[in-house]
């Protein structure tokens, strides 16, 4: 067990190194950071709640979008670079089990996205804080109630986004373990993310009380196969306090994310076990 953990750790360490030494990661990180920072110049000047929301929407939108791109493309790339370059042959001929290899890939990629989310959220926090100081001063002069943002909420959001990206990585790895090519994995992985994002709409739109139980069951199963990724997007509520988020709701979102993550990793490991390298 201890050896197994160690081997997983070594794989993830090299995976992490490989990912951060690639230009793709640096490029997306810089692009997203530029997006966060540029939101400062796009001021709305209504000195109200709207402006902080605008900055937050813009920055978190970038984190969300580029994070998803990174999670899909980079994970598929990290997996297929090992298969296509045949380094997987060398590694899997060693006393290393297939699940250990896949988990190593997972934790390596997840760590990279952890860095990504942390850096961006840090920048976002600084930008929001700086603007908040100005807004508070202006509001006091005008005798209005200032709007603020929540640091604790920001931290909770970072964790939720990281978890969401972890679920995406696990889905992409499950697809990779079945797929033959990088391109197929990226296309199907992206579709899965979009489906996950829109899943809650489908759930509402297709379910009517008059439907037959078979149809309801089918819909229930198919919507459960793909996680509802929208439930992690609580940026407004958590950071700007636009709505109250109960602790229980937060925890249940966390658990559902973890459950999907584990389920997809297990599925991926089972498929990868039978794959011919």
């Amino acid at each position, binding site marked *: 067990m201890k050896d197994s953990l160690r081997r997983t750790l070594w794989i993830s360490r090299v995976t992490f190194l490989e990912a951060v030494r690639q230009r793709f990661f640096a490029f997306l990180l810089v692009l997203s950071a530029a997006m966060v920072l540029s939101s400062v110049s796009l001021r709305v000047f209504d000195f109200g709640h709207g402006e902080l929301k605008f900055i937050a929407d813009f920055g978190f939108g970038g984190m969300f979008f580029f994070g998803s791109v990174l999670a899909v493309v980079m994970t598929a790339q990290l997996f297929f670079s090992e298969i296509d370059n045949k380094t997987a042959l*060398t590694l899997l001929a060693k006393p290393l089990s297939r699940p250990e290899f896949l988990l190593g890939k997972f934790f390596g990629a997840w760590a990279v996205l952890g860095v990504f989310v942390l850096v961006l959220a840090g920048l976002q926090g600084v930008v929001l804080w700086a603007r908040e100081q100005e807004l508070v001063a202006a509001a006091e002069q005008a005798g209005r109630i200032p709007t603020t943002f929540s640091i604790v909420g920001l931290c909770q959001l970072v964790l939720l986004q990281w978890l969401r990206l972890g679920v995406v990585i696990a889905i992409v790895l499950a697809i990779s373990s079945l797929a033959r090519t990088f391109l197929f994995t990226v296309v199907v992985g992206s579709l899965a993310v979009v489906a996950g994002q829109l899943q809650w709409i489908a759930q509402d739109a297709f379910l009517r009380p008059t439907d037959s139980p078979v149809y309801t069951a089918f819909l229930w199963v198919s919507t459960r196969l793909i996680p509802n990724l929208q439930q992690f997007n609580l940026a407004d509520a958590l950071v700007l306090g636009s709505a109250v988020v109960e602790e229980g709701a937060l925890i249940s979102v966390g658990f559902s994310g973890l459950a999907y993550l584990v389920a997809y990793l297990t599925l991926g490991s089972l498929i990868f076990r039978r794959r011919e*390298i």
Partner: protein
Amino acid sequence: MNYAISVRHLTKDFRIGIRGLKLRAVDDLSLEIPRGQVYGLLGPNGCGKSTTLKVVLGLVSATAGEISILGEPSATSAARRRTGFLPEAPYFHKFLTGRELVRYCAQLSGVAASELDAAVEDALGLAAMNEAAGRPIGTYSKGMLQRIGFAQAVVHDPELIILDEPTAGVDPVGSASIGRMIHAMRDKGKTVVLCSHLLGQVEQVCDRVAIMDRGKLVLEGAVEDVLSRRDRHVMTIEAMTPTARAAAEAALEAHGAKITSVTHPRRSLEDLFRELVTGSRDA
């Protein structure tokens, strides 16, 4: 006898395309590879050598047949701990340095942390890669890639070393040094299995050979037995004159023997090359 590798009635079909067309890569192959010897697996391109090795290592599943490796019924992690493998046309993470790669492979192969540094340096030394070990693998030449591949295959002191075309793309001096590494392994009591198209080298390095064609075994045996023609003899004669030759022929004929050919011995291009060239700059 307990063999290093034994393969019984191995068949491997690959499915090709969506229609599931079958391609038989290995066809009812049976082999027994004794311990402590250098064993050569020969055959034309696509005859199933690499596939056989991959099945033995558990990287590809067999369609039918049984294998055993180091006394284990399949490539269990215990068996793989005692096995080293160099795949054909090896390619490693190019952003790691040679030393980092060998270290990484040693860790994955279960080398204890206390022995790690010594094992890594030993393996690099054996493959004559100490000097270049600090450079990223992306900058290596083909010969260096093969040698760093050799180092990662032997770093955990395995009993069985499987090398798929260890000398492909390596110059004759380099491949002679790989030949020496293989002999050094055999002298330590290891079993070495290798595939190669360089028959001259196989002849020098291997104790036993098997020749495959279209997935089937066509010949197997000790190199000595397979190659020597015990009913023919070769003499090398110096300062021969026509009269001496006539006398020798007459003398042989008197005993019922017959000279069927007289030629000049040739040295091989490889020997000539090695005489003239000292070594590549990588070596």
